[in-house]
């Protein structure tokens, strides 16, 4: 079942001379883990802003085409309604956190929904538990490490119990181990809770193993849309400057040298396994 559907979506920011996204038509199924990538300035963030209604409700400008998210026509529903179905986690948690304790930050969105107190407590407990930060509940968010802050930001959004969560480069301020931990939290939300995940990411070396659907934008348009192996192995991805995983790149280079290879690796383990077969043959 499609949870996000767009048809010929085109949007120009106020004062913009050309559209930031053009004729975007895509379908995202419920429960998918989607990676959305493409060169800097290609329209990734703009597209995410359409999904949760920031465009057109907060950013004016000109929006054309059709957009349905979680069964709602985004144009007809205000941001606070969309926010209960689709949550956005920003790149830099500092831009999102503000309360004096983790617990209060996580409860903030729920207070705005006017939920009863015991329901709020239940959801805060659950969100803290799912993101592995129960022991931080009384701490001040600004005193935490970057990785911990990002978990708090995720908990804040998760507490709203959205069907879809959008992560806009959630690990770019983290070191590789911190990033890996965040990807694992996101993966659990996807696999255990069935939350549809849209991950905007450049670091495909780390993220590609979790995904089953990759969408690549370039200059506001969809250029590739499909299974990760096909996408990473296509020449287009490399030519428009998408950082395909190094294991995939090595595979391509070996093929260019006339080595016959099966499959397409996207991780080091997979590459080692496939390469072992070739080397032993």
């Amino acid at each position: 079942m499609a949870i996000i559907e767009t048809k010929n979506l085109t949007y120009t920011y106020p004062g913009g001379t050309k559209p930031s996204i053009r004729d975007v038509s895509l379908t995202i199924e419920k429960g998918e883990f989607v990676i959305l990538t493409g060169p800097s300035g290609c329209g990734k963030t703009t597209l995410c802003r359409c999904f949760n209604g920031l465009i057109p409700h907060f950013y004016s400008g000109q929006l054309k085409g059709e957009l349905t998210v979680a069964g709602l026509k985004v144009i007809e529903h205000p941001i606070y309604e969309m926010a209960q179905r689709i949550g956005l986690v920003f790149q830099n948690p500092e831009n999102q956190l503000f309360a004096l304790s983790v617990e209060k930050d996580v409860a903030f969105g729920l207070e705005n929904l006017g939920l009863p107190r015991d329901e709020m407590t239940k959801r805060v407990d659950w969100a803290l538990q799912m993101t592995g930060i129960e022991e931080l509940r009384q701490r001040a968010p600004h005193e935490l490490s970057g990785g911990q802050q990002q978990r708090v930001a995720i908990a804040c959004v998760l507490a709203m119990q959205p069907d879809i969560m959008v992560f806009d480069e959630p690990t770019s301020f983290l070191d590789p181990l911190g990033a890996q931990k965040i990807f694992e939290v996101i993966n659990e939300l996807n696999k255990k809770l069935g939350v549809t995940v849209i991950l905007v990411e450049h670091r495909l070396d780390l993220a590609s193993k979790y995904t089953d659907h990759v969408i690549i934008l370039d200059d506001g348009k969809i250029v590739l849309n499909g299974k990760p192996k096909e996408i990473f192995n296509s020449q287009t991805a490399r030519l428009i400057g998408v950082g395909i995983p190094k294991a995939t790149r090595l595979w391509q280079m070996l093929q260019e040298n006339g080595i016959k290879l099966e499959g397409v690796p996207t991780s080091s383990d997979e590459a080692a396994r496939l390469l072992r077969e070739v080397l032993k043959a």
Partner: protein
Amino acid sequence: MIEVKDVYFTYPTGVEALKGVSLNIRNGEFVAIMGQNGAGKTTLVKQFNGLLKPTKGEVLADGVSTRNVSVAQLARKVGFVFQNPDHQLFSETVEEEISFALRNFGFRETTLKRRVTWALNLLGLTEYRKTSPFMLSGGERKRVALASVLAWNPKVVILDEPTIGQDHRQKEILRQFIVQLNAQGKTVVIVTHDVEFVAECSPRVVLMAQGQIVADGDAKRILTDPDITLRASIVSPQITQMFRGLADLGLPTDVIDVSEAKKIILEYLEASSVERL
């Protein structure tokens, strides 16, 4: 160019961020300072241009103790590009942003114009000359911040997490760009946890953990050493991890670069087909 002599640094909050760091960076070197979040990387490089002064010990920048001169004087020699461009940008147009420091350093208008054009062109920002930096994407704002420092041509350029928010193509441009700056004799220091980027640049790597330097040497040696990477909680490059998984076949384990990996595998295949004949 930069001499760090047994430096300790404690923040006013009581956090001890540097615990006895000594480091020499020679003129014209290219150094990557790596380590986990909170290891003390940014605190260390902020000592280089006097933004922070040691609690104990001494830092010399181009022979001058950072205690004796102002940040403004040091900045002319040691340019610092912040991790978060929003901490640095404030002007109404990209052009004004890049002109700001040049004007403060007293460059003549004609020189200033030439330098601004040069910097815009260098970082692919010419079309944004009249645009507000705040209308740009995160990656583009980062390039504006870099352009505004390079414009005054400091001897040492410090880049704090330059690859954050940059796509692959921009990273490749950045890499070539750093290599070029370095080849022209500039000292380049980057603070990063982007191992793949470091694997492609192959600089000298200074690895930090808990306020101390735990390893110092060429990228290949540091990034492929399992004990060192574990101690500093960094992840080895994907290619290195792959070769680790194939060590029993007699392949080397100290590979970080894709082209080198290709060469090794092709040679291995050739050798084994010769053997079979």
